[in-house]
């Protein structure tokens, strides 16, 4: 394992220190491991998210006007602890309550739940919205439920825009829930990733094998398959997504073609082209898109596709200005 780190133990603090040095518009509490906007907005619902590290730019890269108010960084692939979430929420509370955006993993769910209880003890109101968009996992009694992946970015962006307009906590929570209900994802890995602490790849793949239906924690997927051209991989992802939710009836979607971390951008554009075509042949139009590394799994090669049904309201919120390290548009 070769990584640009000082030690597995210090990687999260060191990266937070780098984030602090690079982005003066963020305030980084390296000790308590959360990142927040340097300036808050009185009376605004505050959006707080967080999760294990290793998914950068998620979440800290999405802190800023138009998106998150704060993000908590756990150890690599390990949910943050309630203390962090409490500290972050208290720091950004502006009197209108806290919306916790929580990716659906047992660890994240339990820790955010404890944080919400602690926050209640402090007299601060909060709501939590669970993101669970990954169609590779069945949402049934026999699983921990669907994982939260790419839709997290959509929910953070769109709920962030609504909060910026002064909407109240139930409304901001409702739009985040609507985004989640309207979004589906599917991921494919060409290889494993290696956490700094483990120092060895999470699984092994043959020269001609891939993993279909992976999450964002380096875990193996639902099944192994032979390597195939980008057109077939894109079709597999689009098929899994569109089988799960009918995107064709309305027809317009926001699409994220997301790199897992080690796949170069030229390849992601090749995939985007194929996703675009696969959707077109189903009567689905991509009306907004992102192509790049947004919700990553350390140094994993591969990609995921996330689609969100786009109506006029969601598009208006999507187009609203955002000024964060990793997402930035509008005035």
């Amino acid at each position, binding site marked *: 394992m070769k990584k640009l780190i000082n030690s*597995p133990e210090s990687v999260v603090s060191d990266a937070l220190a780098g984030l602090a040095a690079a982005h003066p518009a963020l305030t980084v509490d390296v000790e308590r491991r959360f990142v927040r906007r340097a300036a808050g907005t009185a009376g605004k619902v505050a959006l707080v998210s967080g999760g*294990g590290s290793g998914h950068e730019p998620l979440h800290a890269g999405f802190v800023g006007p138009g998106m998150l108010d704060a993000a908590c960084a*756990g*150890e*690599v*692939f*390990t*949910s*943050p*602890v*309630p*203390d962090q979430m409490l500290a972050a929420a208290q720091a950004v509370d502006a009197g209108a309550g806290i919306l916790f955006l929580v990716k659906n*993993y*047992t*660890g994240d769910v*339990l*820790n955010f*739940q*404890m944080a919400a209880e602690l926050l209640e003890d402090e007299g601060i109101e909060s709501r939590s919205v669970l993101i669970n968009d990954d169609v*590779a*996992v*069945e949402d049934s*009694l*026999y*699983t*921990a439920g669907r*994982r939260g992946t790419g839709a997290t970015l959509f929910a953070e962006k769109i709920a962030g825009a609504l909060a910026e307009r002064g909407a109240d906590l139930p409304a901001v929570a409702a739009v985040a829930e609507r985004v989640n209900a309207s979004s589906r994802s599917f991921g494919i890995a060409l290889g494993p990733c290696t*956490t700094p*602490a*483990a120092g*060895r790849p*999470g*699984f092994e793949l043959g020269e001609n094998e891939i993993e279909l239906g992976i*999450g964002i*924690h*380096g*875990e*193996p997927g*639902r*099944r192994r398959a032979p390597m195939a051209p980008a057109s077939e991989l894109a079709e597999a992802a689009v098929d899994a997504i569109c089988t799960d939710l009918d995107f064709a009836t309305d027809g317009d979607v926001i699409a994220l073609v997301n790199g897992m971390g080690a796949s170069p951008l030229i390849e992601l554009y090749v995939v985007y082209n194929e996703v675009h075509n696969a959707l077109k042949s189903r009567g689905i139009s991509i009306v907004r898109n992102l192509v790049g590394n947004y919700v990553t799994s350390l140094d994993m090669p591969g990609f995921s596709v996330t689609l969100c049904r786009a109506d006029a309201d969601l598009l208006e919120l999507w187009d609203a200005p955002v000024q964060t390290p990793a997402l930035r548009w509008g005035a």
Partner: protein
Amino acid sequence: MSDSEAHVAGDEAGLDVGFFMAWIDRAAEAVAAEKDRLTRLDSAIGDSDHGTNLHRGFTAARAALQAKPPQYPGAALVQVGMTLISSVGGASGPLYGTVFRRTGKALGEAEKVSARDLAGALADGLAGVRKLGGASVGDKTMVDVFTPAIDVFTARLADDASTADALEAAADAADAAALATIPLRARKGRASYLGERSEGHEDPGAASAALLWRALADTAPGGAR
């Protein structure tokens, strides 16, 4: 695990805070020694962090106990639970944290507790975990280990076994239960994402739970220590 046959005189005197601190000490050492194995188990069906997570947690718990020595057994376990919750993260942080916190709460403020008190309190801790995480026996989690271990511990005490013997039997049951997770298909936690591909691997949380039980047995008066 073999030279602990003598029914130790001090047994009826009960378990004091020193006993619980010694347990956590021993648990921290066991986790440190087995860190890589736990992480390797988590690589197969999870996200390769379970060993690191618990190592961070038990190191912090041990340090907290030393920094602020608790006055009675219940306080020690509550403090351990709180420290685990504050330092581990992931699924195992709140879950193990809850085991210790709830067990500690159930022990109350007594200066010494009996083995039966402990068995009852651990049952409370387990109930807390089951409520928090929603797992049942057979879901391939730490619950698969805590459940039979507490059952055996309780049953042996009811049969008038010594604390050391009862814990020894419980730890053996825990070991067996951890191995028994191998063929199971996971239904809770991260491993459940793998569906049938989770079969054939020992659950990392079950393995760590077995370590904690072994550490407890080894700490018992007349145990390996």
